[in-house]
């Protein structure tokens, strides 16, 4: 298929000096937000005991374990700032991301043993489920670094129970295994109760010599039947039992390696466990680098730093999406699908590291005379109209048919509204895109370049497409909200304002409430908030976006559950005619 894929249609142009000069302030604003994110990231990484303190105890930290385990330069952290329950340490206490081990992609997750010995915390199970689901979407192994002291007992009501509570990941592990996706575990330290199930639920268990796992730890085993309270004699008895169990906690390697045989292997050194995980990763099924390459891998024709001058920090400023895409895909080349239809949407086939992906994004700016064809108003990019929705439906369906992973780029203010739009079927066509996504079997990722607003955020492969969206990235310009704060203030308070005026009362209290709502929307739609609450899985500096596209496509093509031979694909033929 060389005629189609070796050289596609080149697009994009070099940044002009005038644009660079004009956008200095915008670039600085974006870099300022990225610096704030980097500062928050550092605080999370330094939470709990210091690295020195952990090393003095003879242990490695989770970050040191990751550094030893993951191939250099391949770590792509996710959920770094995820902390939906606002834990004081700023973390859910697991560290996860995509990385390569011995050349193979895996989802890797570990307990932060610097913080309460890797305890379960509020929000953690949702974080873990994002990692297990990511492994399922990409059909790649899940690798655990288990070091979990069990539930943080004083806050158990926030995470122990419920449908997506702390026990749900054990069911997910079973689901992964039943789907043929291995879960590998390197096990360290004391892992009682919840930690015990974190240890036993994976497929292969590799233990450090000092590790243990058990249904109950010392605190439970030495406990007693409730007597309505405690007195000094009871506590002294408790201390005596504690001392006994401190000498030999239940479920150590003599029990679970020599006895039950649950631990496949036991290693003297911490690094030995990691070497064992590497050995197992070398044995997992994975296609070679060349297997699914449609062309030689090439960098984009333009430097990634240009993105600071192409994506405006200002939410209302129009820009050229095609120029952004030209900084992200191989050779700045593409095969565009239906360029003469639905001008507000780009859809086309591109390459990332020589592998084919479908890309879909919102184009910005004025869409020309007589568009949308059903309205007597001008169409403006970022909004979705009838044609754009039909084009996305067709493209997604064909990507599913051709087994092409999809990368979505959102900067959308929503789907067109009004009577003419309703008659043009935009409501049905928006839901049709959701139906189209759901009937494909291909993994998808999303970059929310700037605005993710209204139902368009759902329709365009948003995180709500949970069975398909592998992960969602934010940028320094990201804003995710149901509508702009000012629009929300009008919708909420305009009738009240009219009533106050009719009654002859001052409008100031209503105006104050409107401005408060605008401020609230601003604060709760910003990148750091989106990351903390999981609206995005990571906020990434603009020059790093391509690395994540490379990780996504590399992982998606490592061991796909279903394949389409390139010479059987329809999309390239439909595009070229």
């Amino acid at each position: 298929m060389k005629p189609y894929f070796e050289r596609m249609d080149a697009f994009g142009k070099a940044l002009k000096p005038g644009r660079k000069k004009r956008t200095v302030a915008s670039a600085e604003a974006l870099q300022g937000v990225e610096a704030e994110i980097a500062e928050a990231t550092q605080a999370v990484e330094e939470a709990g005991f210091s690295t020195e303190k952990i090393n003095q105890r003879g242990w490695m930290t989770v970050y040191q374990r990751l550094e030893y385990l993951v191939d250099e330069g391949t770590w792509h952290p996710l959920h770094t700032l995820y902390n939906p329950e606002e834990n004081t340490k700023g973390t859910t206490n697991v560290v996860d991301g995509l990385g390569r081990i011995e050349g193979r992609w895996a989802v890797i997750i570990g307990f932060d043993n610097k913080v309460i010995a890797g305890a379960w915390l509020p929000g953690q199970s949702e974080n873990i489920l994002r990692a297990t689901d990511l492994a399922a979407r990409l059909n790649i192994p899940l690798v655990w670094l288990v070091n979990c002291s069990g539930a943080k007992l004083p806050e158990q009501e926030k995470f122990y129970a419920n449908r997506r509570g702390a026990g749900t990941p054990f069911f997910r592990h079973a689901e992964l295994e039943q789907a043929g996706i291995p879960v590998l575990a390197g096990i360290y330290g004391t892992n009682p109760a919840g930690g015990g199930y974190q240890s036993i639920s994976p497929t292969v268990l590799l233990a450090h010599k000092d590790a243990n796992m058990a249904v109950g730890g010392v605190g439970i085993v030495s406990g007693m039947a409730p007597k309505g309270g405690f007195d000094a004699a009871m506590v002294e008895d408790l201390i005596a039992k504690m001392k006994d169990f401190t000498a030999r906690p239940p479920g150590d390697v003599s029990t679970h390696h020599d006895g039950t045989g649950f631990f496949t292997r036991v290693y003297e050194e911490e690094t030995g466990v990691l070497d064992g995980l590497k050995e197992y990763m070398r044995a997992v099924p994975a296609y070679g680098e060349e297997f699914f390459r449609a062309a030689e891998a090439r960098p984009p024709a333009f430097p990634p730093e240009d993105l600071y001058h192409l994506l405006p920090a200002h939410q209302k400023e129009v820009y050229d999406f095609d120029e952004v895409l030209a900084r992200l895909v191989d050779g700045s080349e593409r095969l565009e699908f239906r360029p003469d239809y639905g001008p507000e949407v780009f859809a086309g086939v591109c390459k990332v590291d020589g592998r084919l992906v479908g890309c879909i994004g919102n184009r910005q700016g004025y869409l020309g005379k007589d568009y949308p064809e059903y309205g007597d108003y001008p169409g403006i990019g970022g909004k979705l109209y009838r044609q754009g929705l039909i084009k996305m439906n067709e493209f997604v369906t064909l990507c599913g048919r051709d087994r092409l992973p999809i990368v979505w780029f959102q900067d959308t203010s929503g789907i067109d509204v009004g009577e003419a739009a309703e008659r043009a079927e935009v409501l049905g066509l928006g839901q049709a895109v959701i139906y189209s996504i759901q009937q494909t079997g291909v993994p998808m990722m999303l970059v929310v370049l700037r605005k993710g607003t209204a139902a368009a955020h759902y329709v365009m492969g948003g995180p709500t497409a949970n069975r398909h969206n592998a992960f969602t990235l934010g940028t320094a310009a990201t804003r995710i909200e149901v509508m702009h704060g000012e629009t929300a203030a009008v919708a909420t308070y305009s009738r009240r304002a009219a009533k106050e005026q009719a009654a002859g009362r001052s409008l100031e209290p209503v105006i104050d409430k409107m401005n408060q709502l605008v401020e609230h929307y601003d604060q709760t739609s910003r990148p750091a908030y989106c990351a903390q609450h999981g609206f995005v899985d990571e906020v990434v500096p603009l020059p790093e976006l391509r690395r994540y596209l490379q990780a996504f496509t590399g992982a998606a093509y490592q061991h796909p559950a279903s394949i389409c031979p390139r010479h059987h694909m329809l999309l390239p033929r439909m595009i070229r005619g």
Partner: protein
Amino acid sequence: MAEDVLAPLAGKVLSVAVSVGDTVEEDDEVLVLEAMKMETVVYAPLDGEVTALAVKVGDQVEEDDTLATING
């Protein structure tokens, strides 16, 4: 060679970045139009001197109206 800077769409002039007599480079910002809640920057199509400005802040313009003239 004089070239007119035309309005790419109907909208309101939100800001004007140049004055008559200014020297501009190709792709410098000339003015910003607001339409449909979005701001569209209108750029200089060539290097040269601004010889005429046909609009001011707050003006409503139609598509293809002349906004400015640049003599390159």
